[in-house]
Structure formats: structure tokens, C-alpha cells
């Protein structure tokens, strides 16, 4: 499909921001139209990046689980982490990637809370690895400051 979705949204956003919003009567209508244009810009970026962000994050979390699972003291949690580490994304649909991502995020929260309570160097190392993965996740999903 050409033009692509992100190109259409970016173009509409620009037109709404520059041409249409200033012509609207009233500050509330102008402000709302401007915000809607910014949302279209964000949606354009999301269309381009959404699948890649989710696929990368899911792979990253699975690799993390493979790394930290041996040091997890609780056998049930350890087994869940190992099982999740062996999974793969079989669909690139956003809904499928999101479902997998939510499962992985729940496990990550449980693993993080677990290692925080454990003494010893291996637990601290696992904690650092989890925080590094969270930072990579935040960096991937970060949206550069918008300027109006």
C-alpha cells in the first residue's frame, strides 16, 4: 500500500497543525486540534516501529530469563522463566506480540521482586541485568521530546 500509513498520518498531522488549527475559532478548539495533530505524528512513528519494538523487547526479555533463571531460588518461578526463555514470537501481529509481551512483563516483575529480596552477589548481578533490560526497554519506547 502506497502511500504508507505513517506517511499519510504525518502529512495529515502537518496540515492540521499548520493550516487548520490556526483557523479554528476559540483557544480550546485550536489547542485540541494541535494535540490531535501531535497524536497523529506519534501514531505515524508507532506504525513504523511498533512491531520491531515489541519483537526486540520480547527477545531481550527471553534472553534475560535464560541468563537469570539458574540463580532463581523458587522452583516454580525458575521453571516459568526457563519455559518463557524457550518461546518465540510466531506472529508479527501487534496483538500477538502484545500478548506475549504482557506475559513476559509479568514474569519479569515477579523475577525482579524475587531477586531483590535475595542476598548474595548472584542476586545483585541478576538485579543489574534486569535493570539493564528495563533501561533498554525504556530507551526503545522513548519518544524524543516534541516541539510545537
Amino acid at each position, binding site marked *: 500500500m502506497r502511500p504508507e500509513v505513517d506517511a499519510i498520518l504525518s502529512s495529515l498531522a502537518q496540515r492540521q497543525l499548520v493550516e487548520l488549527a490556526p483557523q479554528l475559532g476559540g483557544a480550546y478548539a485550536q489547542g485540541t486540534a494541535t494535540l490531535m495533530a*501531535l497524536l497523529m505524528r*506519534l501514531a505515524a512513528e508507532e506504525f513504523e516501529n511498533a512491531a520491531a519494538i515489541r519483537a526486540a523487547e520480547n527477545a531481550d526479555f527471553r534472553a534475560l530469563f535464560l541468563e537469570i533463571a539458574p540463580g532463581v531460588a523458587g522452583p516454580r518461578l525458575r521453571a516459568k522463566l526457563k519455559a518463557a526463555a524457550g518461546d518465540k514470537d510466531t506472529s508479527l501481529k501487534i496483538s500477538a506480540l502484545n500478548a506475549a509481551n504482557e506475559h513476559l512483563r509479568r514474569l519479569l*516483575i515477579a523475577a525482579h521482586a524475587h531477586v531483590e529480596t535475595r542476598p548474595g552477589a548472584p542476586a545483585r548481578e541478576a538485579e*543489574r541485568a534486569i*535493570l539493564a533490560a528495563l533501561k533498554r526497554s*525504556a530507551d526503545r519506547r*522513548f*519518544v524524543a521530546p516534541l*516541539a510545537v
Partner: protein
Amino acid sequence: MNGALDERLRAYLRRRLGRPDLEISGLARIHGGASRETYRFRAHYSVGGRKAERGLILRRDPEASLIETERAIEFCAYRAFHGTGVPVPEVIALEEDAGPLGRPFFVMEEIADCQTASVLSGDPYGAHRDAIGRQFWTILGRIAATDAAKTGMAALVDLPPVETAWRRELAHWMGVVDEDEQEPQPIARAAARWLERNPPPVARRISVVHGDYRTGNFLFDDTGRIRAILDWEMAHLGDPLEDLAWALDPAWAPQDPNRPGGMIARDEAIALWEEASGLAADPAALSWWEIFASFKGAAIWISAAREFADGRNRDPVNAFSGWYLLAFHNKVLADRLVARAAA
């Protein structure tokens, strides 16, 4: 479009203010924070046979709010600070009965010929940046210095002990995340656990906390004078460092983190706050509250996204907050947690 609201507001004000000839004109919605519908209008009436006119603001509860707040607390804060060194509009009437306008509301004075700054603006204050900055941090210090007992807020909100003021706020915003998250939030939850495991030093004082004191929530005029501090809907009593840390948060001027809020340098800002408040901003305590501030921000944006998704409030600001600002605060929190772990 506002015909029905026009008529109901006129009838209410005639009765409430005892002015049977009162008329209103120019009722128009304006942006005024996501937790209230805000309208500007003019009231016309006679005083002693002479015509009088006044610009007023209507703040009405929305059907669903970005943050669920008590308009009585906001009203009380405006009333408490009016006429003090903390500039606020004069409040006119508070109505907690949904009958007159469909939802509770209050009416206050309009501060004319002013503007607010956008957090998305690269240079929100132009040539008045430094002058506005000096006022901004000094006024926040004055709020912290105000005797909370004299504001009347203690009758409306809990007075927390100095030892546990932090815990109450953390519990509140953790509850918001629990209730409103649409997907698991590992960064916000990691931050909340860190905050709980590493409590801040005891508060030096319990003060009025504005709750949302930042760029975008005050009015300034063309001469660079701050004319009104707005949006007190999250006001409560607590550790005054909570407000200082919130105002310092990088979300309000992401282009230059060394100039919080897009105003003066951070060190000067803190020094002015200390001078006006009579308090020292203990670095350890402030550091805790800065992580809390970003966590609180994340909680608010998680809640905003939920409001939008559920259809309870389709204001685009809720979708924008759930995308842009949540991603921003997740990054700030992740960076800070990594830094703490490495320290």
C-alpha cells in the same frame, strides 16, 4: 452549543450571588487541566444602579477525570492563598450538588491578559525566563512556609505524621497503578519497590503541597510577572519536598534538564526555594522525592491512558499522556534506578 449551560449558570449565579439582573456572555471552553472542564465567561450585573462586569472562570467536574480529585480541596486552597504572597484567583462560589449544572463545579475570578507555558515549547518564557524562574521557585517556597493549620485544609484532608508522609503518597499512587494499568508496568513497579525499601529522611515539616506545581500550571503576563498559580486539584498536606521535586522533574522542560521547568538553573532554583521556605533541601531526601515524582507522573499517565481506553474521557490529552509522557517517565525512572544500583 453552550446555550443550556449558559442558562443554567446564569440562573445559578443570580440565585447564589443575590443578583437578579445578572447576565452572562461569551461562555467558551478553554484548556484548564485535564481534571476539570474549564470555561471562561463574563458576568454583567448592576451595583448601586451602575453597570458592572467581571471575567469569571467555571471549573466543572468532567464525566471522568484524569485524576480523581475533590473540588472542595482545590477551592479551599484558592481561598486560603488569596491575598497572600502566593498569587491565586479569587474564588466566588463552590457547588458540590450536581443539580445546577449537571456536575459539581466552582466559579472563580478570571486573571486576564495572561498566558500559560506549554511543556512542549522549547523556549516557553523567552526574555522573561530568569525573572519568571525567580518568582516561580520563591512562590513555591512561600507555599511550603505557610502554616498549614491556618489554611483550613486540615479539615478536608489528612494531616500525616512527618515520619510517614512519604508512605501515604507512595501507597496512593501505587493504588492508582494497581487499579488502572492496562499492561504490566515493570519500570513503575520497580520504582515503587525501590521507594518503599529506601524511605526518605523524616519530613522537616508538614506543609500544604500543591501537588502539580510546574510549568504549564501558572499564569504570567507580558511583563514577566507571575499572576496566578493554578490547578490545585491535587493539593494535600505532606512533605514540602514533594512539590519541589515535582517542579524539578525533567518532564516539564525536557530540552534542558539543567534548567528545570525551562527557567533558571537548578542550583539557583533550590536556593531560592530554601530561602523562601526556611527549609534546607536535604539532598538525600530530595533525591528520594525526585524518583517519587517520576513514579507519580507515570501513575498519572497510566491512569490517563485507562480513562481514554475505557471511553470515560476521550480528551486527546489522555491518549497523549499515556503515550508520550509515560514513555518519558519510564525512561527517567529506568535511568535513575540503574544509576542507584551502580552507586
